[in-house]
């Protein structure tokens, strides 16, 4: 294009004036030669020729014609869409559903997987861990991090992150439990994060005995301290210790690792020079130097681990190696396959929508045949007609797309409420420019996809035939097969989507039927975090728990009270142990693994967990008495099959080295029924229970209170009862056990709901598709029906004829769909629970459902066909 289109009008005027002046000059010369005025004018004009034609051929020299044509096409397309409001509305709404669903899913996928992390040099930030970690995770221990310090020159910055658990803030209003994270001082430089206020940590604060400092998250600073800038330099009391506020982090700063969401307070880790703590409780992130590759770094970091494994063979395996994973990949790896499933599902949905709209366009093509023939007759080339039709469909797609975005925007809170909170980076899900751009491109693409086939088809028609054709009859044959195959593919795609949804629903229903092993009704839970300063010893903690339990139990409306270090269904720590003296094939040296729970005497009774053998804990199980443990059924059956475990002894922590080894073996005093510790989807794991009075560590505890009525009603009285015990301890994470169960199914519910919605929409659209095609073919066959009726066919026979047509379409689609589904649902294996991806019943039910709905959709056109009046039908064109 030689000039911008807004100058075209200018150019147009210029040409008009130029020709006008030509005519004027010619006329005035004639007048000078003596001709009279009107005749001179006319003669000049005659001599000039066809003014419009000259203008037109001149315009052709300008270039940029395609734009003019495009504007013309758009104007014309808009007029066509306006003139057929019903068609436009139906197509637009269908497209809005398809494109809106894609926008919603893309906004989630974009935030979780695609959008670059908001850090400087995000591509060089790596999670630094090791392979062969016993629990399979990526975490490392302090000794490893310290050993890496010598090799750290491959990094610009290498930092440690440690979950520091809930901390209690006092001295600023009511005591408050806050979420905190500890990071070594190089953490913020590694991420390139600049504070919103104040500064980040200085190296001095990361040394033992250095100044005690903390930083606040922006949200917490704003909500709890009213965004007070004078807070800088003031001291806050956390767990009874004083810390100076040195800075506030920028708004929206989030570290994309599990358990680091909505961190309110950041502490510096004061790194010791030496450590023998074997616990893998830290994560390491590093900013790799630009000239070092990850594998070079891995090669440099592996020798220190090997060295350590010789020193602490129980702590680190001999063959462990350092491993770098880009922070970006770390996030997407944790998101798993679910995003892929959703993307696939919405893509299918959009394909169904496209097939449907293409069918609508084909139906209209019949009506527009004359228009196309006339266009071709007055000289429009095939390319030009195709372009015109494509412009219309793209216009339609863009209309549908913008409606879809609008719907998506309006229902965004609902969509967000479905997204499981555990998903990393979920806080950044939003409809932003990249999402809108993707939607725009998708709309263009959809418009081209559903527009192309009808456009090619319509433009190929024989000119003569169309113009002379009086009857609409013959057109049905020419694209009947096309419309049918579009509907068949719609039904097939819908079947695949519905299969996916049905398998997930089946899994979800099975999950809901899973007995968690405890009674969650009328059960309130909350967390109590004990500052290590006042509650450093197990006795102090046991005393507090005992007092609190007594206080809570005495309240009206409460029935039982129990507590544990973690809640059921939330997972928790596991520890290695030996069986003292061994049993069966298990030698006393065999390292065994079991979940590890610290509980109060009331735990089993408050959760209604049956005791199978032996006894539960009581108040006398403390440090002075014999160390005891209770195990669950799975543990008893896996390690003492056919034997009575009561009285046997286990030594917890022994295989993990001296730092973990308990002072003495524990005697098993009871066996209880299994409960689901990690999730409803996972079978019960071997679990050992330890009484609080004998637990060496763990400052946090979750209370469970069984109430007589509504559990939330007792919260105020629980709070005041807690004030009588220790006014500085807040109740936090107050929720009901029912909600804990519900929340544990969050991501299952998310994908099941979305896929069910998509499947329902797909069924609906495919049904409309079948209805459209059958009802069109009935209107085409009115004459035939009339003849049949005249020859004596009964209405029922005609009804059956049409219904069979619909059923044939649906069956073909269903069979195609089953073949596709057999291949595709296999990919869902990891996302299902207790359901085979090729579950026969699910396939059968969905197939029958689809055929039945499709046949039902044909009922109305079929009834119309059966009531055809032979006399009317014969005259019908």
């Amino acid at each position, binding site marked *: 294009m030689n000039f911008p289109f807004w100058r075209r009008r200018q150019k147009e005027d210029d040409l008009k004036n130029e*020709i006008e*002046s030509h005519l004027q000059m010619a006329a005035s010369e004639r007048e000078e030669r003596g001709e009279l005025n009107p005749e001179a004018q006319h003669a000049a004009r005659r001599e000039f020729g066809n003014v419009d034609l000259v203008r037109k051929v*001149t315009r052709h*020299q300008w270039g940029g014609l395609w734009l003019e044509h495009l504007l013309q096409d758009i104007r014309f397309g808009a007029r066509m869409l306006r003139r057929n409001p019903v068609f436009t509305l139906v197509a637009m709404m269908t497209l809005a559903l398809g494109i809106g669903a894609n926008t919603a899913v893309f906004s989630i996928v974009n935030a979780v997987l695609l959008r670059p992390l908001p850090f400087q040099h995000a591509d060089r930030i790596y999670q630094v861990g090791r392979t062969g970690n016993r629990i399979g995770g990526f975490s490392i221990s302090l000794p490893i991090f310290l050993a890496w310090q010598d090799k750290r020159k491959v990094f610009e910055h290498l930092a440690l992150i440690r979950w520091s658990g809930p901390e209690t803030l006092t001295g600023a209003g009511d005591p408050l439990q806050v979420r905190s994270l500890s990071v070594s001082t190089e953490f913020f430089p590694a991420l390139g994060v600049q504070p919103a206020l104040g500064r980040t940590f200085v190296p001095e604060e990361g040394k033992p005995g250095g100044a005690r400092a903390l930083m606040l998250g922006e949200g917490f600073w704003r909500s709890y301290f009213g965004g007070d800038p004078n807070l800088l330099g003031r001291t806050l009391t956390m767990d009874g210790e004083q810390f100076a506020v040195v800075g506030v982090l920028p708004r929206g700063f989030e570290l994309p690792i599990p358990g680091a969401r909505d961190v309110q307070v950041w502490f510096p880790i004061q790194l010791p020079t030496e450590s023998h703590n074997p616990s893998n409780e830290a994560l390491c992130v590093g900013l790799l130097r630009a000239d070092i590759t990850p594998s070079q770094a891995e090669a440099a970091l592996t020798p220190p681990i090997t060295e350590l494994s010789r020193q602490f063979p129980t702590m680190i395996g001999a063959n462990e190696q350092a491993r770098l994973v880009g922070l970006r990949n770390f996030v997407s790896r944790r998101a798993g396959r679910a995003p892929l499933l959703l993307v696939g599902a919405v893509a299918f949905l959009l394909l169904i929508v496209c097939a449907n709209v293409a069918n609508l366009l084909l139906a209209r093509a019949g009506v527009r045949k004359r228009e196309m023939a006339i266009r071709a007759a007055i000289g429009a080339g095939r390319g030009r007609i195709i372009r015109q039709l494509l412009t219309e469909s793209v216009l339609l797609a863009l209309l549908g797309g913008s409606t879809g975005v609008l719907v998506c925007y309006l229902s965004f809170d609902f969509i967000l409420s479905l997204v499981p909170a555990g998903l990393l980076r979920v806080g950044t899900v939003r409809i932003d420019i990249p999402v809108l751009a993707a939607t725009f491109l998708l709309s263009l693409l959809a418009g081209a996809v559903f527009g192309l086939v009808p456009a090619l088809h319509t433009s190929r028609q024989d000119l003569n035939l169309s113009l002379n054709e009086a009857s609409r009859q013959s057109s049905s044959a020419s694209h009947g097969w096309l419309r049918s195959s579009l509907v068949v593919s719609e039904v097939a795609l819908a079947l695949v989507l519905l299969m996916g949804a049905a398998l997930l629903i089946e899994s979800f229903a099975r999950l809901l039927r899973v007995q968690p092993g405890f009674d969650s009704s009328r059960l309130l839970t909350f967390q109590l975090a004990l500052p290590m300063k006042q509650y450093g010893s197990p006795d102090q903690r046991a005393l507090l728990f005992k007092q609190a339990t007594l206080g809570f139990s005495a309240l009206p409306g409460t029935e039982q009270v129990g507590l544990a270090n973690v809640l059921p269904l939330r997972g928790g720590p596991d520890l290695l142990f030996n069986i003292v003296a061994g049993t069966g094939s298990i030698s006393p040296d065999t390292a065994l693994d079991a979940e590890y729970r610290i509980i109060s005497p009331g735990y089993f009774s408050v959760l209604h967990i049956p005791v199978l053998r032996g006894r539960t804990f009581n108040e006398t199980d403390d440090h002075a008495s014999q160390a005891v443990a209770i195990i669950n059924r799975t543990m008893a059956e896996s390690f003492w099959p056919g034997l009575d475990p009561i009285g046997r002894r286990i030594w917890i922590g022994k295989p993990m080295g001296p730092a973990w080894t308990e002072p003495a073996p524990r005697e098993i005093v009871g066996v209880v029924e299994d409960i689901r510790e990690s999730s409803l989807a996972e079978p019960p794991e071997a679990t050992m229970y330890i009484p609080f009075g004998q637990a060496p560590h763990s400052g946090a505890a979750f209370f469970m209170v069984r109430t007589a009525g509504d559990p939330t009603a007792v919260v105020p009285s629980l709070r005041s009862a807690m004030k009588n015990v220790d006014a500085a301890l807040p109740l936090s994470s107050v929720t009901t056990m029912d909600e804990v169960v519900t929340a544990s199914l969050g991501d299952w519910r998310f994908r099941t709901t979305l896929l069910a919605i998509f499947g329902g929409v797909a069924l609906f659209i495919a049904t409309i598709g079948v209805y459209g095609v059958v009802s069109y073919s009935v209107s085409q066959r009115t004459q035939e029906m009339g003849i049949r009726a005249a020859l004596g066919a009964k209405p029922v026979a005609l009804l059956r004829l049409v219904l069979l047509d619909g059923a044939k379409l649906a069956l073909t689609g269903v069979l195609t769909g089953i073949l596709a589904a057999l291949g595709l649902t296999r990919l869902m294996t990891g996302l299902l629970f207790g359901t085979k991806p090729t579950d026969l019943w699910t396939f059968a039910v969905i197939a029958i459902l689809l055929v039945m709905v499709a046949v039902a959709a044909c009922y109305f056109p079929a009834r119309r066909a059966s009531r055809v009046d032979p006399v009317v039908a014969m005259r019908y064109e």
Partner: protein
Amino acid sequence: MKVRYQNRIELLQGTLDLLILQTLQWGPQHGYGISQAIRANSGEVLRVDTGSLYPALHRLERQKWIEAEWEVSENRQRVRVYHLTGKGKKQLLTERSRWEQLQDAIAGILSPAKGESKA
């Protein structure tokens, strides 16, 4: 009508460009003036159809061989006046030499004897 057409000679493809460039060499001129000049200088033999003239002018303008400006004529009329650009002058030379080659070639065909004797 028929008589008039006999006096006219259809322009060869591409020669109109040459004629326009050549006409503009004498000085800036508007479209009407160019058509009148071609007609007068060819002794009324060549008449340029407006349907060819204006597309040609706009094509040459797009090639940047000529440029146009709005001016006011002696009759106090706003007219669009074209003038040659530097690029256009070079183009004129090229077109002229091509035309001369063509002329020689045609002349050679039309009077073969003269051509042979020369050789």
